[in-house]
């Protein structure tokens, strides 16, 4: 066998095939770029995902309409009764609303307007099972920009990382590439939160002296401007300490299960908003303690309690 008799063509082809993945290694160094060549593909994908979402919505609506018709007679009687109850509650709510408006004026703060939110629907998820992103039906045409925060009514979901004209990709806080500046509510210890598994995250770079412990609540620091300060992220489930490390790492259970979301809110502008203790209890779904229930028996979510009223006045 002649050592020097080789097929040059095959070697060149082989080298070319090897070169392609190596060239793509360089592409990932600019993940922030939303390249022009991606746009037609992502636009078409968004169109298909939106139509599937619409289809599923229509099917579920039709199914529920049919089921409703089956029980219509029974429900009519119940509705009549409920209607009477609701009329009475509505009168009560009118009272609360008037009272609420008056108290807001007194304190001169914009509770809801402090954050400009845009609702969006989840239309898809990442095709890779080890990356956690969502597709939503709002894009740059609706005012979205890269790094806008994404919330649900319960807490932080993630942030926009690939906005397209009519759809956007949201990097979930459970993705390993996510970075959210967070603080432990009890100790005010700061760290960087990134994803760990589909349903958990980790808070890194906590100082050893910070004494984070299981059960501590983790909230946004507000330093990144993606989110208002003090918005709930999750709860510490474990703290990892190693002898050789200068910092601590805490495992965090997010308050939101991002894979089960159907609707989200995008924070278009925080305007330096800060979520206070009173508002936090409104966002988290924890039941009030016995003491709280005793002091605020007629509290309705989103409306000030009698104790809050005293404070405001």
């Amino acid at each position, binding site marked *: 066998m002649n050592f020097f008799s080789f097929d040059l063509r095959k070697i060149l082809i082989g080298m070319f095939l090897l070169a392609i993945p190596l060239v793509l290694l360089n592409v990932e160094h600019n993940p922030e770029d939303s390249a022009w060549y991606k746009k037609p*593909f992502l636009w078409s994908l968004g169109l298909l995902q939106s139509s599937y979402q619409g289809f599923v919505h229509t099917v579920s609506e039709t199914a529920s309409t049919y089921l409703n018709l089956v029980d219509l007679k029974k429900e009519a009687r119940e509705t009549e009764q409920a209607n009477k109850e609701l009329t009475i509650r509505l009168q009560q709510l009118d009272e609360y609303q008037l009272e609420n408006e008056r108290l807001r004026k007194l304190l001169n703060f914009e509770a809801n307007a402090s954050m400009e939110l845009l609702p969006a629907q989840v239309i898809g998820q990442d095709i890779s099972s080890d990356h956690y992103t969502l597709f939503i039906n709002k894009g740059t045409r609706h005012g979205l920009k890269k790094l806008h925060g994404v919330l649900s009514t319960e807490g932080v979901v993630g942030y926009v990382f690939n906005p397209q004209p009519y759809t956007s990709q949201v*990097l979930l806080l459970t993705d390993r590439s996510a970075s959210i500046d967070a603080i432990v509510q009890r100790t005010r210890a700061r760290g960087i939160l990134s994803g760990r598994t589909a349903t958990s995250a980790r808070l890194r770079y906590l100082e050893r002296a910070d004494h984070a412990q299981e059960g501590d609540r983790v909230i946004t620091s507000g330093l990144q401007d993606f989110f208002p300060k003090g918005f709930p992220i999750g709860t510490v489930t474990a703290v990892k300490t190693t002898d050789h490390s200068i910092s601590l790492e805490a495992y965090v259970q997010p308050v939101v299960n991002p894979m089960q979301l159907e609707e989200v809110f995008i924070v278009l502008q925080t305007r330096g908003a800060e979520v206070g203790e009173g508002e936090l209890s409104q966002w988290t779904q924890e039941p009030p303690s016995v003491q709280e229930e005793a002091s605020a028996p007629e509290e309705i979510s989103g409306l000030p309690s009698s104790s809050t009223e005293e404070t405001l006045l």
Partner: protein
Amino acid sequence: MKQALFQMGHWLLHALGLLVLISLQSSLWPLLLGPFPPLLWIVPLVYFATYYPLLPAYFYVFSLALLASFASSAAPFVPVFSLGVLTALMAYLRKRIFWEGPSYLALTVILAALLYPPLTWLASSLSEAHPMAYPRPLAWVFQVLLTPWVAFAFFGAFRRLDQIFLSESMFRSSRGAIAE
């Protein structure tokens, strides 16, 4: 010229098909059937790797894997590297064992669904700043169990498209009588 146009049409149709499969996997399946969809988009790529001569196979696999990477936050290197290795493996396999029909494609799809997650883990470790640390075994199991059935459903359509769009020699070589 005509043949080149047909070849381009063939690629475009497959790109469109890939788009539909990606949207089915990322949108319709999770909305209707739950959080563990099959790896639908990998099936046409495995088909190319299984039935086409090596060079056209790599052209189709690399270009369509790159398109698919746009629908993920993964770096493009990860799917391109993983599917590149799978393509070489399929070429090796078909030289040793091959039979006609959709069951062979289903077998290679099972292999691909089994090997794709470890290969992406390897590619992620080689290239990403935050490599994969916690794989999802349940998602892996579901992918291996569900994806091969798609091969049975699409095999006929893929063969028909090849027959219409590819040249006689390419179509003949794509029937398993590998002419490399």
